[in-house]
């Protein structure tokens, strides 16, 4: 719970600061705190991925983009009252909706009694893999993982198309 409050404080900093370099470093701290919260919530695979991706690669890419553009944000020209009002209204509506959700850590909510728990019993007899998350990713939902790999492939091709510069004199192929 302390971690969650720290995360909220970091996000307030991200919103208010105008020096973009500080914003990028704060977002890296935010990813690291999110990874810690995920470990407390028993999601170890997700925490490892979030730490590696959020606090690692994502920060490097944002710093590289900052190096190629400028690092200070201009002062806002329109008054922020309307977006702030919309944001507060949406937040209040969501809080009202969240009062009906099951309390933290319940074992009998609909999420925890249907299919997900079934994977825990089926994993070792059918695949022989103790890490249930890997078994579900690679075998029970392998088609989704294929889609995800293709998305990563597409992003790589897209960035190469946008940002590669052929300055070589001789012909490439």
């Amino acid at each position, binding site marked *: 719970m302390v971690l969650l409050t720290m995360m909220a404080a970091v996000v307030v900093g991200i919103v208010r600061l105008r020096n973009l370099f500080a914003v990028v470093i704060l977002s890296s701290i935010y990813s690291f705190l999110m990874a810690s919260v995920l470990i407390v919530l028993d999601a170890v695979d997700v925490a*490892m991925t979030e730490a590696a991706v959020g606090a690692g690669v994502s920060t490097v890419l944002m710093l590289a983009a900052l190096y190629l553009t400028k690092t200070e944000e201009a002062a806002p020209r329109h008054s922020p009252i309307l977006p702030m009002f919309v944001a507060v209204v949406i937040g209040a509506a969501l809080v009202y909706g969240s009062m009906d959700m099951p309390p933290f850590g319940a074992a009998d909510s609909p999420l925890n009694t249907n299919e997900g728990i079934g994977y825990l019993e089926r994993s070792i007899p*059918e695949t022989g893999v103790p890490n249930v*998350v890997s078994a579900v990713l690679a075998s029970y939902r392998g088609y989704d*993982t294929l889609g995800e790999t293709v998305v990563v492939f597409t992003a790589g091709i897209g960035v190469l198309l946008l940002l590669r510069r052929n300055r070589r004199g001789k012909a490439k192929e």
Partner: protein
Amino acid sequence: MRLDVVLRVVTKLLLPFIIVFGFYVQFHGELGPGGGFQAGVIIGACVILYAIMFGLENAMRVLSVTAVEKMISLGVLLYLGTGFAGMVMGGEFLNYSVLEHDPVHGQHLGITLIELGVLITVAGTMIAIFYAFAGRGR
């Protein structure tokens, strides 16, 4: 005495351990936390660290741009190949149980192959994106 001596020495000491840890996470993904994506990002971050500390030209000499581009496609091909191998052996697409004499071994083989494919694609994409961003500013 350059200002980054400490960083260079520590990087030189740490890089082999980071690579070994990345492969450990990959191959132990079945027994503990880990798997293809985490290992791919760790190995990609290792090469990016080398490029940051020792210069982009040195990193491109170790792992050239064409090699990285081929890595991206090779991973997806490996994944699809495992899926089609399941079809060739008699089951549906991406059915690993028919790849070996016994379903549990088939699942092991299938899962290992696709995690390897995911590792190659994710590492290649991270390195290629970094090369593209860093090469633009020169």
